[in-house]
């Protein structure tokens, strides 16, 4: 079903940055059972930025995301999130996982309401309508398709109005068409709300179409940090898009880098 947003045009710059927070990852090292996953990893993300993290399987990109939300503890280094006004200065961080992780024993609306006061039901309904699933509020998650489940998961994250949204390959298991639809939805929501977004993905095209910046992790370090200078909305067919995608993909696959400034 089509998902439409009132604010398709770019919001004013200062307004867009209101929700987002900065993320500073400094010198972070993480090892599992002696195997180093991240080593002295350094990345700064500014407020409201959309950063995509790409890399081969097992390169530590998911671990990085998980350490930002506190699911993994770095052995050394620090991860600091920007402060926000109110909430004791604690920013609201939400995660979308590869699988939707909906509670199968709760209907759709209660899933979106997870951890919220019942007074916020209207809010939850609104967000559910935003992701195009208003009429499925009382269905069991088992009756939804994979794409619909991820939309509910997105709604569940958005209802908290997060300052930072972490996306751990949330579209990895969706079919190509649903994927494009979901990418559109995520970009629209990000543009209208202005949170900071970190997207882990295998798909370089997805990274290029969504992110302000693409970071490639290799051997536990930043191997490439590329700003995507293509104006939004981006079209996949455009020459600049294709060139950048090719460049990053080539680097991921360890091909020789083309000369700087090709596009």
């Amino acid at each position, binding site marked *: 079903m089509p998902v439409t947003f009132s604010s398709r045009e770019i919001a004013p710059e200062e307004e867009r940055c209101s929700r987002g927070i900065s993320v500073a990852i400094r010198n972070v090292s993480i090892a599992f059972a002696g195997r180093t996953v991240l080593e002295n990893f350094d990345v700064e993300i500014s407020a409201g930025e959309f950063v995509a993290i790409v890399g081969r399987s097992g390169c530590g990109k998911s671990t990085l995301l998980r350490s930002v*939300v*506190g*699911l993994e503890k770095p052995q050394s280094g620090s991860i600091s999130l920007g402060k926000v006004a109110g909430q004791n200065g604690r920013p609201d*961080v*939400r*995660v979308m*996982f590869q*699988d939707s*992780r909906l*509670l*199968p*024993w*709760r*209907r759709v609306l209660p899933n979106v309401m*997870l*951890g919220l006061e019942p007074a916020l039901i209207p809010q939850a309904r609104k967000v559910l309508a935003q992701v195009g699933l208003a009429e499925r509020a*009382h*269905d*069991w*998650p*088992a*009756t939804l398709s994979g794409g619909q489940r991820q939309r509910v998961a997105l709604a*569940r994250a958005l209802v908290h109005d997060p300052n930072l949204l972490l996306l751990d390959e949330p579209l990895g298991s969706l079919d190509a068409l649903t994927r494009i639809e979901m990418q559109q939805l995520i970009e629209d929501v990000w543009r209208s709300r202005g949170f900071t977004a970190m997207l882990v993905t295998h798909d370089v095209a997805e990274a290029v179409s969504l992110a302000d910046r693409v970071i490639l992790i290799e051997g536990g370090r930043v191997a490439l940090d590329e700003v995507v200078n293509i104006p939004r909305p981006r079209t996949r067919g455009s020459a600049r898009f294709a060139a950048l995608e090719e460049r990053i993909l080539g680097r991921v696959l360890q091909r020789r880098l083309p000369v700087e400034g090709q596009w």
Partner: protein
Amino acid sequence: MNQRQTNRASKPRLRPGILGKQALPWVVPILLLIVWQWASSAGILPSRFLPSPRAVVSSFIELSASGELWMHVRVSTLRALSGFVVGGGIGLLLGLLTASMHWAEVLLDTTIQMVRNIPPLALIPLVILWFGIDESAKLFLVALGVFFPVYINTFHGIRSVDRGLLEMGRTYGLSGWLLYREIILPGALPSILVGVRFSLGLMWVILIVAETISARSGIGYMTMNAREFMQTDVMVVGILLYAILGKLADLLAKGLERYCLRWNPAYQAAQ
């Protein structure tokens, strides 16, 4: 909600095919009954060994008219259920405890696994010595037998709760009781209900034996008492009563599963 109701309304409940399907499970029991009655009437089956179905029915009517039957049924059911509540309750609580707290598992699990291997019925001589043939003896035996299936399945259920959901819950700020109520308990429920269903069956088995060996009332007592007077019809009534009560307990467990796990497509399809 709307959608579900229309679904239910549009489901044709009484098509001949469905009726046939519902009658099918009863073909064999009814056939057996007919053969049994025929064998009794023909004198092939002496009533000393097995009374005819007609004699069983008339005995049933007689016993229930005098109220004796219902008294025994009430006593037995009360015993079974109170034993189930006590044993199942303790099993549930201990299962929750040992599965959630590491120290509790280390402290208790080895002991419980050892005791588990003793058949509850092996304790009957000791139990008679401790409690006599009072209510408490039956309660103890049933509770003990019911305890283990509930305990083990609760433990297993909690341990096998989807880690991904737990992780998700924590990132959504759930902890302590809230995490328990929203994720751990519902996640363990399918397994807990397997334990409950298993226990309900075991509950009757243990009670039958306990009542047969030592009791002054209850279905088992009625059956054993009838043996002294060679009342085979009463004995068969008692045995059939156990079958019916066992089936009722199973229906209860199934209904519980169907209601509690209605979110799970596996249990919806089972309808």
